Every structure is written in structure tokens, then in C-alpha cells.
């Protein structure tokens, strides 16, 4: 096991993940949903405030097209595999559930002009935060903080209008969801690494 952990490789990382592949597959499959149904599932300000709370957890499965969904599915696979390796599937599941809530509420609070939103990248950012902060820094605390700082800069760039490469024209990047998800992943990261074989 230690040999595998020492040199995990992409394949063994992905093979060891349990939650991320299921989540990525669900994201891809949800592209086939009819648009009318997707509109009932996406993040929408007015219905959310009217009590349709399920949208907080269903919105990550809705996307603005196949390219958007595919990019997010890949991001979920990568960050999910890293997070599961670092924190275990139970923690990953908990972080996903809480990050969906936090990112949805973050968008409500900090993006008042936004009426609707689709996408799973807030969850991927939550998994990235979890993977970054779970366990000790392994002698690389500076790198950890530098990466966290880079993420903050990235969110700031998104806030100031940097376009999302896989988003259709005119659709703004949900920076508040990304930031809230990332913060949630860091906040819920365990101090010790996961003790499981992968």
C-alpha cells in the first residue's frame, strides 16, 4: 500500500475513488434532462427564496450544455479522487452535501443580480479545498498557503468579470459559489489524513 501511496499515478487515484466517478457520471447523464425539468432543478433566486430548497442540491447536476458538463465532470473526477485519497469517502460525502448548501447560499448573498445558475464546479472547488487542507502539509506549508492564495486570486478575477471558458456567451461565472465551496472544503478538512487503503 505504501508503494502505491508513494507513487499513486492518475489511474490508481481514479480507481481508488468511489464517490467522484458516480458524481461525474450523474453530471454527464443529467445533460439529457429536458430543459423544462432542468429549469425546475437549477439554482433560481426567486423560487429558492419561496422555499424550493431542493434546488441547492439539484443545481450542481444541471449545466449549460455538454461542454460545460464535461469540463465539470472531469474537474469532479480529479478533485474528488484527490480528496477521497486525503480525507476518505465519508468526509467527501459530507463536504459535498454541506458545500452545495454553502455555495447556494453564498450566491444568494453575494451575487444579488444573478437570477439562475447551473453547474457543479462549486462542488469541485469544495473538493479541491478539502484535498488541499486535509492532513498535514507534508513539509510543504508554504505551497499549501500559496495555492490557497492563488485560489483567492482566481475567485477575485471571476468576480471582476473573467469569462468562464465553457460557459455560453453572456453567462457569468458564479464566483461566490466557487469561493463558498472552497472555503467549505477547507473548513471541513480533517487535521489527520485518511487511514484507508485505496
Amino acid at each position, binding site marked *: 500500500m505504501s508503494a502505491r*501511496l*508513494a507513487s*499513486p499515478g492518475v489511474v490508481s487515484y481514479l480507481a481508488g475513488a468511489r464517490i467522484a466517478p458516480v458524481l461525474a457520471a450523474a453530471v454527464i447523464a443529467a445533460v439529457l434532462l429536458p430543459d423544462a425539468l432542468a*429549469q425546475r432543478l437549477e439554482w*433560481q433566486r426567486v423560487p429558492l427564496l419561496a422555499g424550493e430548497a431542493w434546488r441547492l442540491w439539484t443545481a*450542481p447536476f444541471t*449545466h*449549460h450544455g455538454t461542454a*460545460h458538463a464535461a*469540463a*465539470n465532470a472531469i*474537474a469532479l473526477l*480529479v*478533485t474528488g479522487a*484527490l480528496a477521497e*485519497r486525503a480525507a476518505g469517502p465519508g468526509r467527501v460525502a459530507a463536504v459535498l452535501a454541506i458545500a452545495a448548501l454553502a*455555495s447556494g447560499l453564498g*450566491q444568494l448573498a453575494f*451575487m444579488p*443580480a*444573478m*437570477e*439562475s*445558475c*447551473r*453547474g*457543479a*464546479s462549486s462542488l*469541485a472547488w469544495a473538493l*479541491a479545498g478539502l*484535498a*488541499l487542507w486535509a*492532513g*498535514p*502539509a*507534508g*513539509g*510543504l506549508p508554504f*505551497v*499549501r498557503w500559496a*495555492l490557497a492564495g*492563488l485560489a483567492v486570486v*482566481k475567485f477575485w*478575477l471571476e468576480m471582476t468579470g*473573467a*469569462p*468562464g*471558458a*465553457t*460557459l*455560453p*456567451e*453572456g*453567462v*457569468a*461565472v*458564479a464566483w461566490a*459559489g*466557487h469561493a463558498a465551496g472552497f472555503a467549505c472544503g477547507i473548513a471541513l478538512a480533517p487535521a489527520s*489524513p485518511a487511514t484507508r487503503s485505496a
Partner: protein
Amino acid sequence: MSRVLLAFVAAALLLPGCAANFPRREVRQSASVVEYLYPKADEAPKLEPGIAILKPPVKVGIAFVPSAPRPGALPEPERAKLLARMKSSFEGRDFIGRIEVIPTAYLRPGGGFDNLAQVARMFDVDVVALVSHDQVRFNDSNALAVLYWTLVGAYVVNGDEYDIHTMIDVSVFDVASRRLLLRAPGTSRVGGSANLANYGERTRLAQADGYEKAVAEAVPRLDSELDGLKARIRAADPGVRVENRPGYKGGSAFDAGSLAFFAALAAFAWMRRRGG
């Protein structure tokens, strides 16, 4: 004998009084959207609208077309009630945001597009649904009216009839381009009879009923026209263009910067394992 004579004289004196108090045969209330928007037009207005650029969520104002004050005009609370019913057609649509009911007092009769633009700025709306109306009440007497002579008959015999024709028309204008986006009409006809004593009250209620029925007919048409507007936009109507308001739609997505970050994260994880 002298008492009978006195009664005849009294009746003869009262008769002109009744006739003088009786309403005109035709009473009209109207407010025309053309007269409001083109008050000085000596000829038919030449519509040269630009392209309507809609930025969802479109902010909508709804108002009755103003008309010169006259007795018997639809009172403002009734107007507010009718506008609230029409407002429901605009609600729940993903491309429509805030909907404002604009009291008639804010619009000036014959104010034109300049007045419309002022009000749109004041209420911060992009498009305005103007509700014009035309209501005609015909008053007629029937054969039973002769019993009004008995005086008691004026209170118990329905000797007068009314027939009320109402037309409501909702015209939705893009304020910036002055373009008519859609219109939805509704009509109604309400008839009935009353006695001389309650004629005023009955006709007032019937007129309000006429407006309500006309609005009830206009609302489904308005729904249908709004559905049609969305379809027209999707079909690339050359007169209407949609531009997204910044931040209206959000997407949680990745770009090159995000992917670079995840690559760095993977490298960090790999180095941590190596180091730990």
C-alpha cells in the same frame, strides 16, 4: 275634485324633474393608447421603431392609459385590482424580473413617449404594458317605466335597462426603442335592468363587472402572447434582440486558470505523499 286636480298638477311638475335627472342614452369612458402616445398626431403615426433590446430579467411596468378626468371614470382602487390580475400573467416567467404596478396618476394624459420614458425611469422598468379601455353604456327604458308614475314603481319596478360594452387592450412597449412588443385584447358585454332608485348603483357595479370580464378574457391572451414573444425571440425575430444583463445567468464552470490550479493541487498532493 280639487285634490285630484292638485295631484295632476304635482305630477306634471315632477315629470320634467325625473326626465332631467335621467342619465343620457349613451355614456362612454375611454382612454386610447394612440391618443396618449401620439397626442399631436394630425395624421396616422409613422412607426419607425428601432430594435428592441431586452435584457433578462426584463423589468415590467403595468399601467392604465391616462385620460382626462371625468365623472364615472374607473376609480383607482378598481384599476389597481385589474392591474394586479394582469400582473399575474407576467409572473413566474424566467425572462421577466420585477413587475411594477404604476398608478395612473404618474402618467399625464397625452404625455407621449417622453412621459412614458420618465415614468419608466422613475419606476426603473424596461418595458411598460399600457392598458387602454373603451366602455360604452347604453341606457334604455322599457314598457314598465310607465309605472314610475306611481312613485312606488320607481323603487320596485325595473323600468330601465342598461347594456355595457367594454374593450380592454394591453399593449406592451419597449420604452427605449418605442417598439410594440405584443398586444392582447379582451372584450365583454354586460346587460341588466334596474329601477329608477337603484339605477346608478346597479350600473356602476355592472360597469366594474364589465371591466373584470374583459380583463378575464385578456389575461389568457396575454399569457399566450408572452409565450409567443419567447418563441419569437428564440426564432430570431429581427425586431427583438436579447442581451444578457451582467450576472443574470450564472454558471459554475472551469477555465484554463482553474485547470492549472487543479494541476498544481495534484502536484502538491504528489509531493506531500513523497515528502510525508
